[in-house]
């Protein structure tokens, strides 16, 4: 029996191997359970591949944007609201991966590692968004069939009030979905506000101006000559006007390409890169964890003339609307941005708040002094070129951009904010192939701002 007792160790070894396997499974479970539970085959929250296992998605005023009725996902009854909030809310099939219904389906269904999907028997969670469906609808209508995006947030609280991306499709219409799937609506499943990047055009002059203010003692007095263009190393950067000898404040207001391209060359590639990155280029941004496409600025291999182009937002510069909006809140807040957020609150079926969004400060983009100076430049630009009267009842500071795209009508862009404690709105507007920023983008911005103002007056 002595030998047998020794061999009994084999049995304990078997038990140990089993325990090891079990541990391996548990590690796998802890790291993957969320994606297992959220798989489209999970019948607790999906019906025929359609996400139905979530509570309501509401806008900031409590308007229901999406809900589940009788195992079917039902969206808001107003067509314009459906179209304008599509990319924020998302669809039931998960085509729009950055939509709340897909990106936050675990929050909507109330899933967590400890209690699993017990909410599937007791009632799902409701998610309230920071967006205002009326502002979104206004923005959708303002874009008037153009492709593009509008983002608008409260730069004091960080609440994202409006996030619209076009083209859009109606989730209630089968033919719309078919057109979307057939690729007739270019990039319809993409939320341009998060996942697109555009050449910044003249809006980038803000960055170049910032670099000059902080690096040149004579920033306000130095002048460059504009003869309908500026000469750099034998080549020319074309300007929209014939500005003669011009200084910073004027050049910013009239958006003189000659001035800023020569300024960028004098600042040098290293300084320009430093300030672009301070402003948010080449840095990762996210909206409540949904990551955005990264803005890029790279002049490492640029020739002199290319650096000049880069200084006025051309060459290979790319901006992402979320990053731009965040940086605008930085200028409005004296150098420190506020990160926009989308999830206002998550409540369970008993009305208990599980999570509520709040303002979080971002990385400083410039000193308070510089921010004030840049703000003044933006104020001047509106005063002289875009006119304050274009925005009735609002004191808008901003900068337009016209991003040249090879062989196409340029994209129109407008970024800025309202200097008003009652209406602290920061905004970014991109109208694809919208022509000059001074025209279409400005009008879109105004219409959205008016809608936002109206909403805040209520």
């Amino acid at each position, binding site marked *: *029996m002595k030998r047998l007792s020794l061999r*009994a160790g084999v049995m304990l070894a078997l*038990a140990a191997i089993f*325990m090891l*396997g079990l541990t391996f499974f548990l590690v796998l479970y802890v790291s993957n359970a969320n994606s297992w539970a959220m798989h489209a085959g*999970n019948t607790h929250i999906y019906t025929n591949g359609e996400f139905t296992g979530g509570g309501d998605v509401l806008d900031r005023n409590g308007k229901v944007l999406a809900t589940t009725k009788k195992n079917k996902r039902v969206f808001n009854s107003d067509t314009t609201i459906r179209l304008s909030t599509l990319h924020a809310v998302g669809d039931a099939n998960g085509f729009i991966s950055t939509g709340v219904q897909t990106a936050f389906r675990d929050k909507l269904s109330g899933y967590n590692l400890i209690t*699993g999907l017990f909410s599937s028997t007791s009632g799902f969670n409701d998610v309230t968004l920071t967006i205002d469906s009326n502002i979104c609808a206004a923005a959708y209508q303002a874009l008037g069939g153009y492709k593009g995006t509008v983002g608008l947030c409260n730069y004091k609280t960080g609440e994202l009030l409006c996030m619209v991306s076009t083209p859009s499709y109606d989730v209630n219409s089968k033919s719309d979905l078919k057109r979307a799937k057939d690729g007739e609506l270019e990039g319809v499943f993409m939320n341009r506000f998060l996942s697109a990047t555009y050449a910044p055009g003249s809006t980038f002059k803000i960055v170049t101006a910032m670099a000059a203010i902080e690096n040149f003692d004579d920033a306000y007095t130095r002048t460059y000559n504009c003869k309908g263009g500026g000469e750099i190393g034998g080549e020319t950067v074309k300007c929209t006007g014939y500005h003669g000898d011009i200084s910073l404040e004027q050049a910013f207001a009239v958006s003189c390409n000659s001035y800023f391209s020569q300024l960028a060359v004098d600042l040098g590639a290293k300084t320009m890169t430093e300030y672009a990155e301070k402003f948010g280029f080449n840095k990762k941004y996210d909206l409540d964890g949904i990551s955005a496409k990264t803005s890029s600025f790279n002049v490492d291999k640029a020739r002199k003339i290319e650096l000049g182009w880069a200084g006025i937002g051309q060459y290979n510069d790319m901006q992402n609307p979320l990053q731009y909006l965040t940086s605008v809140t930085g200028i409005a807040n004296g150098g420190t941005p506020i990160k926009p957020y989308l999830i206002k609150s998550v409540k369970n079926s008993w009305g208990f708040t599980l999570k509520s969004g709040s303002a979080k400060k971002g990385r400083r983009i410039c000193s308070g002094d510089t921010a004030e100076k840049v703000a003044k430049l933006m104020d001047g630009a509106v005063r002289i070129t875009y006119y304050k009267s274009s925005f009735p009842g609002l004191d808008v500071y901003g900068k337009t951009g016209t991003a040249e795209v090879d062989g196409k009508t340029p994209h129109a862009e407008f970024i800025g904010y309202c200097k008003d404690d009652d209406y602290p709105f920061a905004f970014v507007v991109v109208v694809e192939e919208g022509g000059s920023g001074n025209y279409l983008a400005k009008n879109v911005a105004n219409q959205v701002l008016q809608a936002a103002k109206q909403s805040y007056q209520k």
Partner: protein
Amino acid sequence: MQQLELIYFSAVRFILPALTVLMLIISVKTVLHHLKRKTLARFAIENYENVVEIKSAECMIGRSILCDVRLKNPTVQKEHAVLTLTDDGFKLTPASRQAEVFVNNYKVDDEAYLQSGDRIRVGGSTLQIAVNPAINMKASYKADHAQKQCRACNAVLLTLFQLLTVICYILHSPKTALTTMAVFGAIMALEWIYLPIRGFKSNVGVEIMAFFLTTVGLCVSASKSSELLIKQGIFFAAGLLAFIFMGLLLSHLNAVDKLRIPVMVLALLLFFYNCFFGTVVYGAKNWVSVFGFLFQPSEFIKVALVFVSASALDKMLKMKNLITFLGFVFICLLCLAYIRDFGAAAIYFAAMMVILCLRLCDLKIVLGLGGAALAGCLFIIRFIPYITDRFATYLHAWDYASSGGYQQTQTMMSIASGGLFGLGPGNGNLNRVFAADTDLVFGVISEEFGLLFSLCVVLCFVLYVVYASVSIPRTRSIYYAVTASAASAIFLFQTTLNLFGSVDLLPLTGVTMPFVSNGGSSMIAAWMLLAFIKLGGSQYVVLRSKEAS
């Protein structure tokens, strides 16, 4: 869901795992409680030069370091003689033909019974035996009294668990409330008839754990349909009867030894019948229909395999004994390959390896056999097309979530959906998936009762293995040691294949989880195997009173 129902479910999902964890902790306490072994006899070696105490009912005398009575004399064989405590007293058997043994100067040819004071000559050594007069030959099934409260407490916890669960099912489907109450009521009644009769003094922890596992199995059935629940309830009663019968049979070692060959022959006949007249169900021809009842012979032959796997130490040392056993297993494996039941073949083979290891075969042979089999399996998996197909989705289940990996991915989704505490009994969706009540039971119970609970369930099988392992040194005969270990190892292997197969860490082979998976053959066979574990832990020599040391 109704408000009242919701509140009940919200509370119960935490209470049920808590009860289970408590039961498991108490079980661990009773299992690990080690009995102190008593001295049964003393050997005075070479005129009291050295005194050896005999504490096992079967021991080996020889020169090897692994012998219980070690004689450092070159004239003694490595394994020279076997001493066995039988119903008629101590029996001495020469271990081999070359080993010469004399008792009181008479040469022992076959066997000799010893009395206190007998002088034994083994090779060139002499020993004198002194038998402890307090040995009670007839005593068995007598555990220590210290753990009595623990067992009674576990039985009460189990009943509480059953009551809370029944209420869940009644709330969930009031239409079938009567059936549910009837079946669960009958089960509880059976338990409370059986346990007091057997007595909490004896080691009924083994049965209580099986009652718990069976209850979990009944829950799996109840979640699916009430007809299934009734069926499983009947199978449970049959299993309990089979368990009692096996227990009685196994306590008579002589009868077991006489039945060894007949059982082998019967088992093989059944297998041959299966091979030629079997019914094909889902690709494997592992069903046999008798008088309209479908059953799986391989489940019962598994019991036979354990039954014939060993003998008392003196008989087991004979070469013939080992060869008949190996021959039997080999034919069984061929039959299983023929009917394409590869899950069962894996179980049989694993059981054989454990048995060989504990039968004190040369470890080199055991390892060699294992290696060869592994190579053979890999060859089969790689080169036989219809088996290769089966493995196509293995480890890639998520890539085939709607086809070949459907069952596994659904299981994983359900486990994740259940979280740690589950969605409540009856609230699962996995039971709608094909074969969920047999192959995917781990997922079904995780989804409804939570991962914490289902972990406790599989830990019960680990506990059986540990229990068998700690009973080895104190058991009356190597037969009980080997069979208890083999039975518990089979439980653990089945659980391993079932659990890890359902979550795609092993290929899905359709092996059942003992007691928990639905099915009559599997349930009854599990209870029969349990008898081996029970006997392994209770067949030991009891001394008449405390005065004997």
